[in-house]
């Protein structure tokens, strides 16, 4: 099944320019690995990058740089495509970070009844946060606006809100002022990969989720 909900065009452009924060770029890449339509969109945006590069004024390159480059060709081995990681239900971009190969290996931490989370560690300079979220079958998430930028990719199961049904591969790349109340379908837990801005000015995702349960 090809995804029905896609990356926002502004996310596609920023991904192509290479300026997305790491947390968001992992989620975008995970979606891209499942979505030929968005891969085509990124390629179009990269074509803009190509034209921009083509139109740049020429910097002066030293003779030494040219000579070193040409001398280095002797040692340069031909590039080989990396061996594809074993097939997994988890997107490659996530497997590389977590070093696990299946949903069963995720180290969940219970946050509230029906809500479990797993932080995905990013390099220190990453500005955003990345986490896996598991919501139990049949459970409604608290209604929440996005107090900052947020992008969510469904990896397993499905939820629905006023935007429609979000199943595996679908991404919710929403403006921060959109309020929604996702409800997980019956029968299967829903696992999502969520990138958020670091909770400084905003309540953390955890706090927002736990709000109705623990009354904070």
């Amino acid at each position, binding site marked *: 099944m*090809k995804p029905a909900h896609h990356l*926002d*065009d*502004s996310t*596609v*452009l*920023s991904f*192509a*320019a*290479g*300026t*997305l*924060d*790491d947390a968001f770029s*992992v989620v975008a890449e995970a979606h*891209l*690995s499942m979505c*030929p339509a968005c*891969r*085509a969109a*990124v*390629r*179009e945006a*990269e*074509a*803009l*990058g*190509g*034209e*921009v*590069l*083509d*139109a*740049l*004024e*020429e*910097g*002066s*390159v*030293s003779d030494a*740089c*040219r000579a070193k*480059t*040409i001398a*280095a*060709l002797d040692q*340069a081995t*031909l*590039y080989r*495509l*990396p061996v*594809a990681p074993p097939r997994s239900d988890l997107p*490659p*971009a996530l497997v*590389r*970070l977590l070093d696990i190969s299946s949903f069963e290996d995720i180290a969940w931490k219970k946050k509230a009844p029906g809500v479990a989370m797993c932080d995905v560690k*990013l*390099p220190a*300079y990453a500005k955003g946060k990345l986490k896996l979220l598991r919501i139990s079958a049949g459970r409604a998430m608290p209604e929440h606006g996005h107090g900052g930028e947020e992008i969510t990719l469904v990896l397993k199961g499905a939820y629905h809100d006023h935007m429609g049904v979000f199943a595996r591969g679908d991404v919710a790349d929403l*403006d921060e002022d959109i309020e929604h109340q996702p409800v997980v379908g019956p029968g299967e837990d829903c696992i999502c990969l969520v990138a958020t801005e670091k909770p400084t000015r905003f309540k953390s995702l955890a706090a927002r989720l736990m709000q109705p349960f623990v009354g904070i």
Partner: protein
Amino acid sequence: MLAAMDQSDMQIDREKQKQEAHFRNLMKRVAQSHDRQAFAVFFDHFAPRLKSFMMRKNVSAELAEDLVQDAMIAVWRKAGLYEPSKGSVTTWVFTIARNLRIDRIRRDVHMPMTELGTYDEPSDAPEGEELLGRKQEDGLVAQALKSIPDEQRQVLLLSFVEDMPQSEIAQKLAIPLGTVKSRMRLAYGHLRRILETRS
């Protein structure tokens, strides 16, 4: 205001077609026979532009030349992987340079930039994608870039050249983040429309 382009505005750019055909030919010589002369011609065209591309955000001339060298060597090593149907040679060089710039900044082995092509399956390539390289050669993407309003082009240049995230662009231009996003969407939508008129 979006400049509406009618068909008559869209001249096929013969010069661009010739240049791309030349680059493709050089790439083939590098890939098939490790032709150093072809590589040198390639270097003399791209290295100066790559130097400008790398000289951003406190990058010293020395590091910029290091990155130029790495990018050009990557071109040599990867020449055989270039697929004309998925974009022009210039775009391919851009993605190599962009990935190097990110990897040098991130310096993290767990997060190397992945080539989009590794996710492609032969069966699911949409028709339009096959034509992208061709359309770019015809100068359509360059025309899209030229015909958008300045405020949209500025946001693209800050992204692609200055390496600025959306939030930094918003700060620099003193406009809301939502405005940065909407300018990006408009610019991209304009490109889409131009590409679609020639599908």
